[in-house]
């Protein structure tokens, strides 16, 4: 075969692999493969879910109980614990997601990342698959929390539509924050530094949102920050779906923010992820 013919053939193979239907199928298969691996890992370490569920339960039953009858904090609900529940659910998922990037640094150090990047898996598929791992953990935590809320009689609206909608919003937010974590992980060299940056990022996201208290209680500057914080929209939507409480804004805006945030973070993470090996 002549060099020119070989070149044309090589180009056509690449072109076929990059056609839209093939790319879509590869993205689907890649995400499923990564998600499958994350699910299997969780099966080998299911205790992880229960240990991670302790912290949000402490928030709900110690912090929430201490301020249970504070009407200003309860934002229209009769029990602050009910108001707090969606915020704590989102907070627990946020903590899982934001430290998910630690795994990227570990994978780089042990060689898994180089190996993954040399497979035909699409970068976006790797990122979305990894984010699926975070959402699976968030989902398991949410199920534990909802079960405890049901058993302890904390008053939320138990409609199928509301619970499913809130969980979907929670998973979208978790996936987006997991992608943000992967972006951070691809920019730092060591696990120690990542932990420091993770703390630096997670605390403002958590406290400058409506997870713990209504936006109305915040000074104007902090409210402006909270309005730029995707967690605020996630919690707002979940509260609307689980409690029927709204502090302005509509549900579709909450979903739109979550989707746009996820798409943006996933696309950026897919670009920065390979940098982690350099």
């Amino acid at each position: 075969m002549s060099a020119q013919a070989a070149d044309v053939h090589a180009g056509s193979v690449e072109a076929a692999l990059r056609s839209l239907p093939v790319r879509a199928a590869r993205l689907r298969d890649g995400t499923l493969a990564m998600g499958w691996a994350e699910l299997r890992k969780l099966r080998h370490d299911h205790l992880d879910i229960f240990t991670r569920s302790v912290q949000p339960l402490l928030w709900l039953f110690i912090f929430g109980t201490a301020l249970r009858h504070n009407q200003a904090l309860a934002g229209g609900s009769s029990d602050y614990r009910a108001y707090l529940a969606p915020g704590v659910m989102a907070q627990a998922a946020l903590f899982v997601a934001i430290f998910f990037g630690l795994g990227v640094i570990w994978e780089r150090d042990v060689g898994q990342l180089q190996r993954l990047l040399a497979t035909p898996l699409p970068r976006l598929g790797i990122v979305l698959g990894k984010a699926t791992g975070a959402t699976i953990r968030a989902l398991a935590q949410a199920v534990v929390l909802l079960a405890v809320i049901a058993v302890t009689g904390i008053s939320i609206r138990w409609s199928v539509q509301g619970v499913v909608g809130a969980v979907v919003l929670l998973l979208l937010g978790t996936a987006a924050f997991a992608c943000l974590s992967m972006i951070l992980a691809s920019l730092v060299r060591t696990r120690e530094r990542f932990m420091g940056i993770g703390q630096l990022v997670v605390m403002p996201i958590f406290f400058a949102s409506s997870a713990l208290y209504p936006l109305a209680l915040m000074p104007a500057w902090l409210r402006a920050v909270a309005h730029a914080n995707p967690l605020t929209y996630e919690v707002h939507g979940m509260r609307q779906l689980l409690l029927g409480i709204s502090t302005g804004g509509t549900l579709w805006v909450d979903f739109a923010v979550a989707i746009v945030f996820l798409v943006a973070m996933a696309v950026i993470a897919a670009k920065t992820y390979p940098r982690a090996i350099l």
Partner: protein
Amino acid sequence: MTALARVEELERVVEVEALVVRFGEVEAVAGISFEVGAGEVFGLLGPNGAGKTTTIRVLTTLLRPAEGSAFVAGHDVVRDGLAVRQSIGYVPQAISIDGALTAHENLEFYGRATGVPRRDRRERIEEAVEAMQLASFLDRLGRTLSGGMLRRLEIATALLKQPVVLFLDEPTVGLDPTARRLVWERLELLREEAGTTVLVTTHQMEEAERQCDRIAVMDRGRIATLGTPLELRSRHGVAALEDVFTEVTGGRLEEGGSFRDVRASRRRSRRLG
């Protein structure tokens, strides 16, 4: 024509021409050229920091070269990266097995990740298990396996796609002699039975002499000498390949390898231990 049939027509499966890779001011690979023929076992030797791993990273599309060109299985590593990744198997220096999955799950995952069709996956996994003798530890978690088991499992995961070229970066580093011998025995069989082209980097001179058809000794980003083990010994007028290595690298103390490399290498040795 299928990709594999086309590759069988290729005489040279890897073609590298005037390849340059720079990290800032440092020229890690300084204009190397070589070719690897179909079915050949080609060894890249050299001290730490010679540019072996960087070269492999370019050939596996993990790094973009600053200058020059490289083709793998007839595909340009820069322009047709995806087609290259479809054609290769790669086992990096560090342990790439997921310790939180069992050996079988690792095989299943890489079968999926490399796009092995579902209908063929079980059969391919069985073949790889047989080829690398993994049956006795398929249900054990990766983190509980010995060094030799891990390396064999890694090579097995890289074979599922039936790659045109297998890139092995220091496949026997940190292994005891028995585990090393077993890994090489399996690779020899693979080559005899499937005719897989292998590009391997190693520090082990005796292994390179025994296993490689041709060897390139790299030093400071350049290929210092290249040929069959016999050619190299006779060209440099020495009795052993180790003496060729000492002669072309100047026998100086190794300078390459950053703190991170050394730490990773020691951690790897502990894990393989």
